[in-house]
Structures are given as C-alpha cells and as structure tokens.
C-alpha cells in the first residue's frame, strides 16, 4: 500500500468538487465560448485521477456517477444518441436539436437537446477515460481490493 500524504487527502476533497464544478462550467459555456463536452469531460477525468491518487482507484471509481466507468460511458453514448430522438419523433430528421426557454425569474435560461448531447459527450469521455486511468493506476497500486468481474 502506498503511503499517502495526508495533505493530499485533505486537499483532494474540496479540490475534487472545484474541478468537477469547473468542468461543468466549461461544459455549459461551450456553446458560446471555447469549451464543450470534451474539454469538460477531460477535466472531470482529472478530478477522478486526483481522487484516485489520494484515496485509491476503487474509491475514485465509486465516486463516479453510476458507480462504474463502463456504465457511465455507455450511458453517455445512450444519452447523446437519445438527444436526437425527440426531433425524430416530432417528424424532423434525427439529431435536429430543439430549443426551449426555462424562465428562472431573474433570467431566462435556454435549454436544448444540444445540452443533452453535450452532456452525453461529457459523460462518455469522463467514464471511458477515467476508467482507463483508474485501471492503469490500479495496476501500479498492487493487489486490488476485490476482483471486479
């Protein structure tokens, strides 16, 4: 077992959420400023790597949405694919994006299937690449806590 720096463990907690938050922010602003699903997803990966370095890969994996990188990635692809369906059902070509406005009182937020699509990209990149990184880090960590499959 690796000797973990306590400082790192302590710092990882808030840092994890900061990175995740910024990744979401990058995701959301992507449509109008540089950014988007990929970059957001890659940032999220780095959050997971941080957690893995500080708390171990297993813990990082459990912190992922859906608890499993494979499921997260698959769900991402499904979500991205699904974002094209509403238009299809409405009689327009697949992947035609729909836009709506969400009144929040003080401002109107534009919601769209584009966001859904980008979210799918985000989830897929996060799941798959975090999965890679965690599994590789695990190789170096010595014996795994449990056999996954």
């Amino acid at each position, binding site marked *: 077992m690796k000797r973990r720096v306590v400082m790192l463990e302590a710092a990882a907690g808030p840092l994890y959420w900061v990175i995740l938050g910024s990744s979401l922010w990058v995701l959301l602003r992507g449509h*109008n*400023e*540089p950014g988007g699903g*990929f970059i957001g997803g890659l940032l999220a990966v780095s959050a997971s790597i941080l957690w893995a370095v500080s708390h171990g890969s297993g813990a990082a994996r459990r912190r992922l949405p859906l608890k499993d990188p494979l499921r997260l990635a698959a769900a991402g692809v499904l979500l991205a694919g699904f974002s094209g369906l509403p238009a299809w059902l409405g009689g327009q070509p697949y992947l035609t994006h729909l836009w709506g406005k969400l009144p929040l009182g003080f401002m109107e937020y534009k919601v769209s299937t584009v966001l859904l699509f980008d979210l799918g990209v985000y989830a897929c*990149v996060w799941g*798959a*690449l975090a999965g*890679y990184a965690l599994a*590789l880090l695990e190789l170096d960590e010595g014996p795994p806590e449990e056999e996954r499959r």
Partner: protein
Amino acid sequence: MIPLLALTVFVTVTAGVYLALSRDLFRCVVGLAMLGAGANLALYAAGAKGSARPAVIQKGAEVLADAANPLPQALVLTAIVIGFALVCFALVLLLRVMQYAGSDDADRLRLAEPRPDDPLKPPSHSADCLPVYPREDRS
C-alpha cells in the same frame, strides 16, 4: 502559413514513421502516436484559411467575420479524440504484449505466425486464458 506547417508535418511524420519502423514495440507505439499528431497537423493545415482569431462570434454580431476556418478545427478535434482513444488502447495492448508474449522485440514476436521451421506450434496459453481445446470429451 502552409509551407511552415507542411514542413512541421514533414518532420513529425518522418520521426513518427522512423520510430514505427523500430523493432522496439514501445518506440513503435510512440511513433504511431507521433504519426497521429502529424496527421492531425496535416488535417489542420489543409484547411487553415482565414485569420488567426478564434472562431467565436463576437457579442452583438450575427455572423462570424475575420476568423480562423472553424470546420477543420472541428474535424481535428474529433480526430484528436479518436486518435487518443486508439493510442490509449495501443498502450494497454503493448503492456500486455510485453507481459504475456514476454518480449518487447518485434522480431521475436512470432506467436501468431510461427517461423516456418516451427511446423506444428500450437498457440501457448497464458494462465488466465481458458484452455483452447476442450479436453473433456477426448477419449
């Protein structure tokens, strides 16, 4: 801009292929990654028209004016991610080849294609793999 980028592509591709021609598998994979970078640069260079301003529409403007060509950027971005996914797989595969085939020498990597003077060499099995030929019903 094109000549400079083309020259850079030349150097990258040459180095990548040189490494890929090595019998050392690690160099080979790194070479492929570099070749991929060269290909991305080439794709980028092929459509690098317009100015050097980001392809983001200014606040208040309706259309994009005087900016870099956005389409090759999108294509390169896609190609980068795809290439990255493949290189990740390549690294993992490389690791396992080194561990299971026991060699990082491409010249000694003859498990799938045994040498001709090696007439009846069945594939050997690693500990984890199932036996390939079921034994139970061979009397």
